[in-house]
């Protein structure tokens, strides 16, 4: 509530005079016009409203909004409204208010009929599919030009991306892989202890890491780390018109920006997967020999016997596929990014979500295929 004081007086019984004093500012709360309305209701025959302000009268836009309401009420009741007794700035501001109000254009929120909304979504899916296919086509063409030695991109940029996707990610991959190996060893130990077969922890950790866990954990890490970074980089380049500048120069963004990123990640992901496998096995080894008291040599021998070459290949193939998925998702979302800070945020989020969803789907498909062909 406003802490401003309002008293009323009647001039010749026809003019309602509002005597204002005290604080009529926003910080004191918005004043209500109800009191004035009550006065107008209780005194028939009022033909005008006027004001008198005291020395301690303080006002800001809160008071203007109060006046604005009073003026509307006066207009409705055909009452003359004058602000002559108030500071001259108030009259100026009051003159601006209706002009601004008239300029407000109602925002159209047309509700789409149910069938129309389904149609729009189907068209949206079709457009997205075409856009993804066109993007993949651009990448394929860029690779074709690369293989023919005609692609234009900077080797320095490519090497910097390789460094960022590979060596710079080793710390995080090490930490997560070791922890995953340790967790697998603990989970295995609880079950295998019941049968006195704890040494088979080596088999569980080895096979799980090399066959699937190493690749998946690395892929999830790289989606959040590198995929998001690709989307943000390209999104910012889009917002800064850097990609427009490439296009007008006749340089294909697919060749100059996307192909080096896809290539770098496709090369580095299998290597990181091998590294994650080793780290995971090391994690299992630490827990099994250090905490569970297994013989180190026996654990080592069991790991070598259990992990077959086809497991290693399978892990590497998954690493390769995940590399393509992460790079393509990141680059696609970056290139589709809207030219705003919100757009960049959405692009990075959706790059990670798209990549992780696609990784899980790809893993399910690969596992199913392996089951059928007996690998």
């Amino acid at each position, binding site marked *: 509530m406003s802490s401003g004081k309002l008293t009323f007086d009647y001039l010749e019984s026809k003019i309602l005079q509002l005597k204002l004093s005290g604080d009529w500012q926003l910080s004191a709360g918005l004043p209500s016009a109800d009191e004035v309305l009550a006065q107008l209701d209780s005194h028939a025959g009022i033909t005008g409203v006027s004001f008198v302000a005291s020395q301690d009268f303080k006002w800001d836009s809160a008071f203007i909004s109060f006046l604005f309401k009073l003026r509307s009420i006066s207009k409705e009741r055909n009452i003359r409204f004058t602000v002559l007794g108030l500071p001259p700035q108030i009259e100026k501001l009051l003159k601006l208010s209706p002009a601004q109000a008239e300029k407000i254009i109602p925002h159209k929120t047309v509700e789409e009929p149910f069938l129309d909304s389904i149609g729009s979504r189907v068209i949206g899916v079709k457009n997205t599919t075409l856009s993804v296919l066109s993007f993949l086509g651009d990448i394929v063409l860029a690779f074709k030009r690369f293989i023919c030695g005609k692609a*234009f991109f*900077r080797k320095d*940029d490519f090497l*910097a991306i390789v460094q960022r996707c590979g060596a710079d990610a080793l710390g995080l991959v090490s930490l997560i892989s070791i922890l995953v190996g340790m967790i697998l060893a603990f989970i295995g130990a609880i079950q295998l202890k019941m049968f006195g077969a704890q040494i088979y922890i080596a088999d569980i950790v080895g096979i799980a890491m090399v066959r699937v866990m190493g690749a998946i954990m690395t892929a999830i890490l790289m989606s959040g780390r590198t995929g998001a970074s690709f989307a943000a980089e390209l999104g*910012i*380049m889009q917002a*800064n*018109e*850097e990609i*427009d*500048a*490439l*296009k*007008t*120069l*006749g*340089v294909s963004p697919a060749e100059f920006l996307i192909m080096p990123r896809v290539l770098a990640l496709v090369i580095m992901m299998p290597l990181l997967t091998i590294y994650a496998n080793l780290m995971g096995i090391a994690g299992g080894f630490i827990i099994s020999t250090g905490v569970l008291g297994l013989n180190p040599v026996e654990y080592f021998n069991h790991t070598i016997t259990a992990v077959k070459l086809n497991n290693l290949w399978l892990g590497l193939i998954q690493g390769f596929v995940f590399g393509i998925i992460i790079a393509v998702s990141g680059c696609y979302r970056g290139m589709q990014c809207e030219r705003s800070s919100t757009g960049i945020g959405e692009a990075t989020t959706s790059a990670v979500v798209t990549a992780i969803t696609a990784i899980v789907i790809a893993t399910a498909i690969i596992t199913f295929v392996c089951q059928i062909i007996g690998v």
Partner: protein
Amino acid sequence: METVIEVKNLDLVYGDFLVMRGLNFNVKKGEIFVIMGGSGCGKSTLLKTMIGLNPPQKGKILYSGLSFWDEDEQARQDIMRRFGVLYQGGALWSSLTLGENVALPLQLYSSLSALQIQDVVLLKLGLVGLGGYADFYPAELSGGMRKRAGLARAIALDPDVIFFDEPSAGLDPLSAKMLDDLILELRDDLGATIVVVTHELASIFTVGDNAMLLDADTKTAIAQGAPKDLLANSKDPRVVKFLTRGEKQGAGK
């Protein structure tokens, strides 16, 4: 004077919205043509269509008689190589130094050796007053310097036509004046044809040989001519209002 750019019955869309319709104008060789208008009237959309980034909905843009959007991709690329574009924020490639930014078009489309390219890069950077900054990255420069570096890249291949998108936007008056002087020098010294998109009156009157005013309400061009002539002779209150910042006849109408 030879006509370099001819625009015929051009309709522009931004997303699903019609932005401009029925645009017709010519740009003569060696002139500075200013596309002016209020914010959001479609100036940048028109520029993007002229430089090959957005296809028009209807109409033609001819460069020396060749209908740009009717040509195949390869021919369009060949035409685009004759353009230089200075984008609003400079649009320098942030991972490259200024020298590398300017060198890239030369590496792509010239047969110069690395040493010769280096010389040309230093010359172009020198022309825009950034001679000593070849090894700096865009992030290390002020907004005005980035724009000048963008201009050095735009003129790297000595283009026939240079497009400027809001060259003075975000610059202090002195930097804006410096950029206007550079635009005039490019026209006078290199003989380039220049198209400038801007709403800055000081720039319009300083550099513009010829101009066109776009109007967002009618979605058409409402005036064409030399900016000073338009100011002196136009009877259209919208034109007078725009060219006098609403201070003369037509204000408030």
